[in-house]
């Protein structure tokens, strides 16, 4: 799949700000970011409030997803362009989610909010009003979602790609270093996992590296493209970024994101863990 099918750049977005077939959606970890300002015409999706079930640990289900998109005024035939902070982690997570529920045309803004800000492009405070729609989702496509039992069975069999930072992988840290470290789960990684931090797939400004660099990165770190792959991190958003690289940019067929990730795996009783410290 050419990357133009899944990725647009900031110039393209500026040229399509008034295109009625395009919906810009900002997805952030820091929900105050959208309130401060956003790209003109963009609506907000809150990854925690809108995309997670508020009682069980799971996604919103198909009906909840349909309700959310209907309320946001998004139609099935529109092209959704996602962007956000944290180098597009949560935008990539939302992208994966839209694909899971079968939305046809979804793209990521390369570099996300960061590249847009660093370019000093226009950001506005006006919140757009969009007419409610009757959005219809498809049943979840679990070909792109891994669950814990499959991860345990994949040890030494499939490619397991741990995209956290080296200190989280080795067990020195339990969370990315912009968050407090106090956590209940055990530190370390899934045995046989390769540590290929998500950041190696991105340039400093948050844009993705080119196809050749990306291919060399994963193959150089021992990922066998002839095998199935599962990516994980701490809560599944950084690994959605890597899932995007492997499945959408490099067009690898069998790549799953394990959204339970380390906060689930590191809390499971009796599963094997490797730790370097």
């Amino acid at each position, binding site marked *: 799949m050419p990357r133009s099918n899944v990725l647009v750049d900031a110039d393209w977005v500026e040229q399509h700000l008034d295109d009625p077939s395009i919906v810009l959606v900002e997805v952030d970890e820091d929900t105050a970011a959208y309130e401060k300002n956003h790209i003109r015409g963009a609506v907000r999706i809150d990854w925690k409030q809108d995309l997670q079930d508020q009682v069980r640990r799971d996604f919103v289900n198909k009906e909840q997803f349909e309700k959310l998109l209907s309320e946001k005024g998004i139609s099935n035939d529109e092209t959704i362009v996602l962007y956000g902070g944290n180098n597009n982690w949560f935008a990539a997570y939302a992208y994966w989610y839209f694909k899971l529920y079968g939305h046809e045309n979804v793209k990521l803004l390369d570099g996300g909010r960061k590249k847009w800000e660093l370019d000093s492009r226009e950001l506005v405070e006006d919140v757009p009003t969009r007419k409610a729609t009757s959005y219809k989702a498809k049943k979840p496509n679990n070909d792109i979602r891994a669950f814990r039992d499959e991860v345990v069975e994949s040890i030494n069999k499939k490619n397991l790609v741990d995209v956290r930072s080296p200190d989280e992988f080795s067990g020195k840290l339990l969370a*990315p270093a*912009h968050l407090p470290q106090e956590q209940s789960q055990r530190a370390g990684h899934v045995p046989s996992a390769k540590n290929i931090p998500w*950041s190696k797939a991105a340039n400093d400004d948050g844009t993705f590296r080119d196809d050749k660099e990306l291919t060399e990165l994963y193959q150089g770190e021992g990922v066998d493209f002839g095998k199935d792959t599962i990516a994980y991190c701490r809560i599944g958003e950084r690994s959605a970024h890597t899932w995007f690289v492997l499945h959408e940019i490099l067009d690898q067929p069998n790549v799953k994101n394990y959204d339970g990730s380390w906060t689930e795996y590191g809390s499971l009783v009796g599963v094997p863990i490797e730790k370097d410290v």
Partner: protein
Amino acid sequence: MCGAPVQDLSLEGIDVATETVIQGTVTRDGEPEGGAYVRLLDSSGEFTAEVVTSATGAFRFFARPGSWTLRALASGNKTADAKVEAEQGSVTEAQISL
């Protein structure tokens, strides 16, 4: 900038004794730079975390003891690095001038 660094990020509710905190401010021409991106790189130069500075240019990380590089990135292709040694149980202050 003279005197104490601006500290508008509260540590309330965080057990500093168990954390290795690195925090500080980013300035440009002596003025606090809000909206700058600060990356925390480990001793091998590998990315560990990234935050955006507050309106007063403040940033903070929860790291582990050891040597770290802080790299600020701001509009106009401005970048600057600062090196710090962090210890558990204390707050390491760093100032980065673009």
